[in-house]
């Protein structure tokens, strides 16, 4: 009986782990990242994931001509300063936050509609450690109402 309870406990804890991580990531986004968009209007689409050091994530979006946008990329302290770049569809770099002291948000004005790729790079840890560092990364988009 004890063994059965033990096995069931392990099963439930294991099942809950990924959900807990995701849930914490969403809470982090809501509490830490969303306020950074103010006074821009959040477009209502949450893009967040648990990333490991060395991982790259991409967000494909459309910037409309004449519209102002804010991109905010927030990450948990455990994975260090995250780099984000804006690329056009030819993968030319438009913006790189590593040239702006790793700013976590930046504003953009586009005079013509185009597709944009937001590329997020989690730095590899320089220290030699056994455990791979991971943490929540969120990419949020806001626009200005005119």
């Amino acid at each position: 009986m004890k063994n059965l309870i033990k096995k069931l406990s392990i099963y439930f804890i294991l099942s809950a782990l990924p959900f807990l991580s995701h849930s914490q990531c969403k809470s982090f986004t809501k509490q830490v990242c969303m306020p950074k968009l103010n006074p821009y209007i959040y477009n209502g689409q949450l893009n967040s994931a648990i990333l490991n050091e060395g991982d790259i994530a991409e967000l494909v979006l459309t910037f409309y001509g004449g519209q102002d946008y804010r991109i905010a990329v927030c990450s948990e302290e455990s994975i260090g300063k995250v780099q984000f770049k804006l690329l056009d569809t030819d993968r030319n770099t438009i913006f790189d936050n590593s040239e702006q002291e790793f700013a976590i948000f930046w504003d953009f004005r586009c005079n013509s509609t185009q597709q944009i790729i937001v590329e997020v790079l989690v730095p590899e840890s320089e220290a030699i450690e056994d455990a791979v560092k991971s943490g929540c990364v969120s990419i949020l988009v806001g626009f200005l109402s005119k």
Partner: protein
Amino acid sequence: MFFRLNKLALITFAVGTGFFLACSGDKKDTRGKSDNGNINENLQQKNIQEYANQVKTIFYNIPSPVEMAELTQKANLTYNSDILNSLDKIDQYTSTKSMALNLGVYGADLSYTRLYDQIQESINYLSAIRKLSEELGVPQEEGAFALSRLEENINNRDSLLFIITDLYANADLYLKENERSGTAALIITGGWIEALYISTNILDDDNPNPEIMERIAEQKFSVDNLIALLKKHYKENESLSDIFSLFDQLKQSYDKIELIYKPGKVITDEEIRLTSINSKTQVYVNFDQIKEIREINNKLRALIIS
């Protein structure tokens, strides 16, 4: 006991982390271009493959109904309530799929009524959105639907905008938090279809507004993103086969429209933290192409609101 607990925690952590790492993220298809054109093709291919392997997660963003409404705001057309989805149909929406799609539809309708300061209609659409959200199991945050807040702010177009975006952000967050990203994708899809329906059906056939035509043409980018987003969640789902089939037709129509991108000067003002992108996208579209898109999207819309 202490040792046992520690051992249990260790096993849990190790296996759980392994399970989580194995499950998380989608691998992205190879599609990047190398910056260096001089290296040999094999090496270039290898670099692209390595890069693609590193891209763990790819997200797609679709313009929200509010954003779409903003884009057609300048057109200066008269308000037409007949094009909106009737609120009387709300009781027909009983499946998760129809509730989610029509939550998006009503959100686009609300964005339209807000733009034209239709206060009573806005309140009615907000009530419908509340009903569908509750039935989808999305708990309402304190305040968002508080009657007092609505009454205080309903006359203020900007406040109403914040209430609408708050509602949708809350639903998106809750659904994704609870591993229901597919339902969140359906809300976005419904909103996009309805916003396209409104913009294609407010056009005057005898004198179509070129600015709105351009905005409709620019949705070419969103069609690709929307199909990718839906396939991510519903690739094998037969209940969406009609929608996928019409989306394929919509894509074929959009493929006839040419959007030619020319990179331009990028200017970054570090003081005000603003980057201006002076690129140019030339839009080549005619009214026949818009009519074709309207016809297919009208079918899509009829499918989801019926």
